[in-house]
């Protein structure tokens, strides 16, 4: 996903001299071809997240389109005030490409995992926040971003994620739907968890349980109005996100349901816990233990629907 994003920035830069890439000591191999062919549009700066945000804002104020890449939590935690004031307050077209969203960097510990990044950035006025599901969606999003003057925060996965979205012609900001209005359950999700939610849908289908999945790549406006025919007050709705419980997708759904005056008594959620993890392993280990893999999500819905698996004993 990250490779696709950076390649897409390079492609944009070839045809638009205002497109710039800015990294913070990301390694010598990062976009080495762009560095060689478009050196004036390539900046590999030091380990200075506060500086690179202000630097990008100064460039954007003068008409450039900076795409800034570093680890998600180094944006959201380290440079939050710069992101809020230098970019958000001035509503400048800086694109933050946030590597390692969620538990991607689990083996590196809690200093590197991004468990609250979405909530932090989603609460900055003017920002548009995205969590694409795979490289297909990422490519479309990066190309769409070049036509928009808003500030962007784009959360990446680990890379090499399974391709689960179709190759649409363009990125359209609307929720993506797998399923229909006849489903007993519906899962709302975002980012790379989509693949796990689709796995859950498949497992449930094999058990004769109908379940739809809605993926929100664009988190700043869920457009729930556009999908409200998919569910009613009897539908079991499950929000699944790789984030602490408050402030991101679940909070946005609650606000959206308030706006459309929808009863939330059948709304449920699974997420990362509201705590720093002191376990390592890999991203999937953390998704598994927190109930965010396909089989765990399916099991959760079976219980919520009153159709628990029969005991083998």
């Amino acid at each position, binding site marked *: 996903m990250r490779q696709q994003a950076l390649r897409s920035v390079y492609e944009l830069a070839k045809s638009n001299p205002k497109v710039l890439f800015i990294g913070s000591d990301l390694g010598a191999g990062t976009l080495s071809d762009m560095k060689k062919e478009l050196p004036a549009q390539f900046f590999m700066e030091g380990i200075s997240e506060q500086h690179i945000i202000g630097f990008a804002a100064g460039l954007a*104020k003068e008409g450039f389109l900076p795409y800034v890449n570093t680890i998600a939590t180094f944006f959201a935690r380290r440079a939050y005030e710069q992101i809020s004031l230098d970019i958000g307050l001035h509503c400048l077209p800086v694109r933050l490409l946030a590597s390692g969203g969620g538990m991607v960097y689990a083996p590196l510990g809690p200093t590197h995992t991004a468990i609250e990044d979405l909530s932090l950035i989603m609460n900055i006025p003017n920002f548009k926040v995205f969590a694409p599901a795979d490289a297909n969606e990422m490519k479309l999003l990066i190309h769409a971003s070049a036509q928009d003057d808003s500030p962007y925060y784009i959360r990446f996965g680990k890379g090499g994620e399974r391709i689960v979205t179709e190759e649409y012609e363009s990125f359209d900001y609307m929720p993506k739907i797998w399923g229909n209005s006849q489903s007993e359950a519906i899962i709302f999700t975002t980012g790379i968890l989509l693949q796990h939610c689709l796995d859950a849908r498949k497992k449930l289908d094999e058990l004769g349980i109908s379940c739809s999945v809605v993926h929100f790549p664009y988190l700043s406006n869920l457009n729930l109005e556009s999908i409200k025919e998919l569910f009613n007050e009897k539908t079991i709705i499950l929000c699944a996100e790789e984030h602490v419980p408050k402030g991101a997708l679940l909070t946005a759904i609650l606000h959206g349901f308030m706006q459309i005056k929808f009863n939330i008594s059948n709304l449920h959620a699974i997420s990362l816990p509201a705590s720093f993890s002191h376990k390592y392993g890999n991203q999937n280990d953390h998704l598994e233990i927190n109930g965010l893999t396909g089989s765990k999500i399916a099991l959760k819905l079976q219980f919520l629907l009153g159709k628990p698996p029969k005991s083998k004993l």
Partner: protein
Amino acid sequence: MIRYSEMSIDYKKESREIKLDLRSKQLRNLVLDALSGGGRGHLGPAFSLIEIIRALYDTVLLHDPANPTFAKRDRFILSKGHGCLGLYAVLSDFGYFPKEMLNNFCGFESILGGHPESATIPGVEFSTGSLGHGLPFGVGTAMAGRLLNEKWQTYVLVGDGELNEGSIWESAMHATQHKLGALTVIVDFNGLQASGQIDSVVSLTPLAEKWEAFGFKVYEVNGHDTKSLETVISRPFNDIGQPVAILAHTVKGKGLISAENSNDWHHKAKITFEEIETLRSELEQI
């Protein structure tokens, strides 16, 4: 190491002793108009930096009050946003907005708040207030000029207390790495921060050597001597080269016996009409 400052000159003493001319007093009276209208504000910082901003707008900057955003203008960024009353006085004097607006400083519908905002005030390049933001932005502005093959200069005015912020030094390293010769940092070096003398809080000494060590060409100047400021700040455009740091030695609250070197007048949230009148008479007497 090459030192650019003339150590034989006692800039602190000079900045204390220099007399203000009529224009400097008029600009200070505009600051007092705003303080009177708003009943609050940062007086000390404004009176500290007003000659620096005056020198920039009178002589150094390519700027046009009738067209504040014309592309080829020089860029001035007041990183020390709490010194905004000095900037408002100079901008209003040049006609960027009517002087009458100063009387509504900090009013609910006013364009002039306690820190400057680019979205509302003609002539303000960048909204500042929280410290340490202006220089990173200025490095970006200077780099943009290079990429666009333009010849604008970028000037960033920072406070000495503001130099406590780590982002300043992150940007200083990058400005040197990129050889941003079109970037000038001016330090309003009045020696005070909110908790007292800078040397008693976090000493900056030796400040000139610090900037030199970060790769800047350093000058020192009496920050209330307009002619010297104009001479030191003005220089031919130089895209590729050493960025410049100017240590402008100033007196916080300069021009008012009761406010000079006093943190009591750093910021006041309640200022009476009588206090303003006393300050005006002090200004007349110097």
